[in-house]
């Protein structure tokens, strides 16, 4: 990894002051394990080499906030099987999903074998494809945390308003707070505080994290993505930890409002409801952790309108995605890392997305790490 110097950053004086303050209040016997929940934060921490700037007794645990990384194996296959068995079905998904390995291959592999698979940038693109192909059925493989779910919700409302009956959502939308709780509930898990996701929190605001702060007594600081944002958030967390506090604070105030985006939340709740449970890669089933369409939108729900064959995939038993997702192993401690599992030939989804912890490790550390 390229060593970074403080004066290479913007605001070097503020960065230096923040680092000095962290070093002033942390004591040699402290050891803080801080989970950054969002894949975008993991990426920034590595890209800017923040771990190298911070005292050694602050340890980052890379969290579950990369939507394709936490998809259970089998989920992509289920969607693709519908499309490959029905010649009138078009499967649409964001670029991140295209290379997720499934039982018989990724969406790109299916495309090569003749299934109509199309990459989209917006849920509205999928609706547009449906409108332009009235003799086809278009499935949107919807994915993402609360950041993205409201956009899918509006697209469903638009389909309803325009009475488009060949557009179907295969929802894999997930929620951030239930998965953080589930990680804290794991045996032998020690996390001292969370860097809360910046953009999911634009939608949900600060309140949903209160349960983490009040019941689990873990501080949460919602953070921006700049080096200075992340360092300030760490300082805020460490101040709370040293004072024995556990509050939800927003460092990213210039973007995140305490109450979130109230309109977006209303629209999301109008269209979606909680699933009783949803399977997460490496974490098992987590209650109320994912969203499905409400019964009144069943007409646009792929899981209702198609006979979805439940596909369970045995994960490669040497792959340790679960341990990495739970923060029990660093990516490079997995048996397959960099040998069998690489960004060009990913075994697990953590290696697929540029925001996945394994791909981030691989891309930023590969050159200097002994494999």
């Amino acid at each position: 990894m390229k060593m970074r110097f403080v004066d290479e950053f913007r605001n070097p004086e503020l960065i230096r002051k923040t680092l000095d303050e962290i070093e002033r209040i942390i004591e040699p016997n402290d050891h803080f394990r801080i989970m950054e929940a969002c894949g975008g934060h993991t990426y920034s921490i590595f890209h800017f080499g923040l771990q190298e700037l911070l005292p050694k007794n602050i340890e980052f645990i890379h969290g579950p906030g990369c939507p394709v990384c936490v998809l259970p194996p089998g989920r992509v296959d289920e969607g693709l099987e519908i499309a490959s068995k029905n010649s009138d079905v078009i499967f649409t998904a964001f670029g991140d999903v295209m290379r997720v390995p499934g039982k018989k291959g990724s969406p790109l592999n299916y495309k090569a074998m003749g299934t109509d698979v199309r990459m989209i940038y917006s849920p509205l693109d999928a609706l547009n494809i449906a409108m332009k192909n009235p003799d086809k059925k278009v499935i949107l493989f919807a994915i993402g945390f609360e950041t993205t779910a409201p956009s899918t919700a509006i697209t469903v409302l638009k389909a309803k308003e325009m009475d488009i009956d060949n557009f179907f959502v295969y929802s894999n939308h997930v929620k951030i707070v239930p998965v953080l709780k589930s990680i804290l509930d794991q045996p032998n898990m020690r996390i001292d505080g969370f860097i809360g996701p910046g953009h999911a929190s634009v939608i949900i605001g600060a309140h949903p994290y209160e349960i983490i702060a009040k019941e689990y007594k873990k501080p949460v600081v919602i953070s921006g993505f700049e080096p200075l944002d992340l360092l300030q958030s760490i300082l805020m967390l460490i101040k709370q930890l040293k004072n024995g506090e556990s509050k939800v604070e927003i460092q990213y105030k210039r973007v995140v409002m305490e109450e979130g985006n109230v309109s977006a939340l209303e629209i999301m709740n109008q269209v979606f409801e909680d699933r009783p449970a949803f399977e997460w890669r490496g974490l098992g089933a987590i209650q109320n952790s994912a969203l499905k369409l409400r019964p009144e939108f069943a007409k646009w729900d792929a899981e209702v309108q198609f006979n979805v064959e439940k596909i369970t995939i045995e994960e490669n038993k040497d792959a340790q995605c679960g341990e990495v997702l739970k923060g029990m192993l660093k990516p490079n401690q997995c048996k397959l890392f960099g040998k069998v599992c690489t960004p060009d030939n990913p075994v697990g989804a953590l290696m697929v997305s540029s925001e996945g912890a394994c791909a981030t490790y691989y891309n930023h550390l590969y050159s200097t790490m002994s494999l």
Partner: protein
Amino acid sequence: MCLAIPGKIIELLDDNLAMIDVSGVRRKVNISLIKHENVNVNDWVLIHVGFAMNKISEEQAKEQLQLLAEIGEEQEALAEVKGYQFE
């Protein structure tokens, strides 16, 4: 995936759409999620998967653009905006 792209509203259109400029690239995005915020031409917004998520300051927009450039994701962000195909 959780990329958020700053853009400037240059025209308000029908059907909850607005024409947005992102570093010279112009595309339509949906503004339904921020309608309660009294959206005007020249406002800056954060865009995610074709939707404006919230209004931001011009200063924040510039910081965000610079961050995308620094982490090498500026081209990916522009490719996303160029990719929006809806009307």
